[in-house]
């Protein structure tokens, strides 16, 4: 592998979830179920009393479930199982993007947290408009940054100046993928600033 491919690979791994947080509990549950059923099957093979229920007993129980359990219970239990299964399936298929993104670098794989970008944009906008820290909040989404500004009561802010400040900060970052900055100025001002 050449260096560019290694760098891309590392960036991809750093900006996407490994799904190990979900894999570990799932694997432990499967392991516990396998060990328990395995122990039961060996005990019944040796003619020993079962821990909870022998495999044959379990099998006939499973066959009788629809008639032994109330339909409402079946539906509820089935729905819960199906939801958990659908959740696992979605986690397996979806990208699992984390709140980080790549910056341009000649030498290394450079990854920055969205939160750090948001804080930098907020600061830049705040300085451009001469506001207090609480009056500016930025959230960074997949391909745009939303800057919410609460102006001081009685003072009009120029949205173009603020947008230019935010865009300037974003451009200065030199991200690998473009990020658009949108400034929203609240109609209600903050009093006493």
């Amino acid at each position, binding site marked *: *592998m050449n*260096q560019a491919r*290694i760098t891309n690979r*590392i960036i991809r791994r*750093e900006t996407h979830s*490994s*799904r*190990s947080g*979900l*894999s*570990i509990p*799932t*694997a432990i549950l*499967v*392991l516990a179920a*396998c060990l328990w*059923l*395995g122990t039961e*099957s*060996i005990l019944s*093979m040796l*003619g020993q009393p079962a821990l909870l229920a022998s495999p044959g007993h379990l*099998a006939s129980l499973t*066959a*009788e*479930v*629809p*008639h032994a359990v109330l339909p409402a*219970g*079946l*539906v*509820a239990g*089935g*729905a*819960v*199982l*199906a939801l958990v*299964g*659908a959740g*696992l*399936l979605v986690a*397996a*298929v979806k990208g699992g993007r984390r709140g980080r993104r790549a*910056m341009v*670098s000649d*030498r*290394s*794989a*450079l*990854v*920055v*947290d969205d*939160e*750090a970008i948001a*804080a*930098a944009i*907020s600061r830049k906008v705040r300085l451009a408009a001469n506001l207090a*820290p609480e009056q500016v909040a930025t959230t960074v989404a997949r391909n745009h940054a939303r800057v919410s500004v609460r102006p001081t009561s009685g003072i009009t802010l120029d949205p173009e100046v603020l947008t230019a400040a935010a865009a300037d900060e974003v451009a*200065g*970052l030199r991200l690998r993928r473009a990020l658009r900055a949108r400034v929203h100025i609240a109609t209600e001002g903050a009093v006493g600033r």
Partner: protein
Amino acid sequence: MNSTNRAVNRLFLAIAGLVLLGAGLLAAGAGLVPGIADQWTAVAGGLLERWQALLSTAPAPEPLGSWWTLALPALLLLGAVASIFWLTRQGGGRTGTAAGEQDPELGDTAVDVSYLAAGVEQALKGNRAVVGSSLTAWRGRNKRNESSALRLTLQARKGASPREVADLAEDLVGAIDAQLGHHPTVLVRIGSGTRTKLASAHRAG
């Protein structure tokens, strides 16, 4: 940067998800439609009978009764081994050696990552934009490649420009290159963790 096998994670999660989804839908269906419930009992009963018939095809001495009874524990053992395999694929790959060189005449040289980490910490002392740093080494994916990959994490002060921190990181990586005498693979992460939240914000200076 660790050696988690992500494809395995997704494959196993998809299998577990499909099994649970199928079982859940079947159970819910049996609760809603009486026909499915009757079908369930009939099919399960049929399967149990088939199993009994299968048992008699391979008789074995007592107390086993049939060789087929071994199939169930064998299958479950396989499942247990697969889940242990899955668990051991999580994480791993961290190493204490940042770089190593083997020379038949001069002997082996290894550079501990803590040596480089201490240097990074020293270089960042008094820096306003960075509130914390860590440097770790990870085994390269290439088995033949002896050198490790490095991961440099810099916690940016709240409001500090990430580009400013990135330029600082590039300087640090350049210094590490100069010290090691080669260019290891480096991942730089500019983060905003607990240290960022606890430290005072970057004020207009």
